[in-house]
């Protein structure tokens, strides 16, 4: 249970860096009623609705908002520990004079990532999903309302570290970027194809560690392309800066469109 307001720890909270208090998402409401079943008079209602329709509709609303304000929104997804936050820290530090940016951080618990991003001076909001394994379009809607995004800016959304669940949830982003680090297996695109299928860009991070690990970059790219032949790749080391210029150039180009 949370000490501030007594909420269940599994609910989603939204917090800006430096704020002590947080607030909750509306959650999903159901009608609760108890009934006994009698199947003799059953009738069938044709529904034909997309189960993720509500999320997709909200994602489209987010997309419309981003388009109207000319905001370039990217959704960063990966397993935990691939270096998404370091990649963001370095990117924001390098580009803060070129591209006005804001960040939405998604994690189950803690303000740690938002605190790290805040040191770059870029506005950041932390979403803690509690037990939730992914961000959804409604959370993003609430988060950008709090952040008050600038026109002609770039919004970086760092999803919960999870290579499975976030694949199914459109947030309204322009580009979905899957990050894989060379300390993971090069066959990850084959093991988690749904995520690679749903991505536009693949960043291979921590390439400075290639001499020390059994990771074949070309094989990884080949596997990823077998799953999704539209993927575009960046090979970088956020720590040493290797390959980062190409990534920055792409970001600048995309944000100016």
């Amino acid at each position, binding site marked *: 249970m949370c000490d501030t307001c007594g909420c269940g720890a599994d609910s989603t909270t939204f917090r800006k860096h430096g704020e002590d208090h947080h607030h909750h998402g509306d959650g*999903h409401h*159901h*009608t*609760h*009623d*108890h*009934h*006994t*079943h*009698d*199947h*003799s*008079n*059953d*009738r*069938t*209602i*044709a*529904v*034909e*609705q*997309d*189960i*993720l*329709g*509500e*999320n997709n509709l909200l994602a489209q609303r987010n997309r419309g908002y981003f388009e109207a304000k000319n905001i370039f929104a990217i959704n960063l997804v990966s397993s935990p520990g691939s270096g998404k936050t370091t990649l963001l820290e370095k990117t924001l530090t390098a580009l803060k004079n070129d591209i006005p940016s804001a960040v939405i951080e998604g994690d189950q618990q803690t303000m740690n990532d938002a605190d790290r991003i805040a040191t770059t001076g870029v506005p950041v909001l932390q979403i803690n999903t509690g037990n*939730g*394994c*992914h961000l*959804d379009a409604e959370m993003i809607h609430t988060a950008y309302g709090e952040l008050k995004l600038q026109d002609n800016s770039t919004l970086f959304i760092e999803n919960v570290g999870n290579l*499975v*669940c976030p*694949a*199914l*949830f459109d947030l309204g982003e322009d580009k979905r970027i899957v990050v894989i680090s060379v300390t993971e297996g090069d066959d990850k695109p*084959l093991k988690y*194809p*749904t995520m*690679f*299928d749903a991505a536009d860009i693949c960043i291979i991070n921590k390439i400075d560690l290639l001499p020390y690990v059994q990771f074949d970059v070309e094989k990884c790219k080949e*596997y990823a*392309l*077998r*799953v*999704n*032949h539209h993927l575009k790749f960046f090979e970088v080391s956020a720590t040493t800066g290797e390959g980062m210029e190409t990534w920055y150039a792409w970001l600048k180009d995309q944000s100016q469109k």
Partner: protein
Amino acid sequence: MHEMSIAMNIINIACKEAEKDGASSISKIELDVGRLSGIMIDSLQFCYDAVCKGTLAENSLLEINELPAMACCKKCEHTFEIDAFMALCPECDSYEIDILQGRELKLRAVSVN
């Protein structure tokens, strides 16, 4: 465990439809689930049983119609059934395929009384 969110969405949609119809309970919910939808059916069933408690759908049956996935080869335009995102065209051995169907995740019908 995104299956929990999916199960909650299913119950939400089904209960709204049942309420609109003036039904007193839901006996069955039918889904169309594509082979590449990213859903684990066992996990969805488990979550469904947990989520439907205390709703109009309590004790209802979840019927899942699994839809096959189809792809079209970009090189030779051959259309064939696949069971994974990575699939080799049986005609020309190319991995460059466009997925035509298999990502579906749809609530088809609700039986009520």
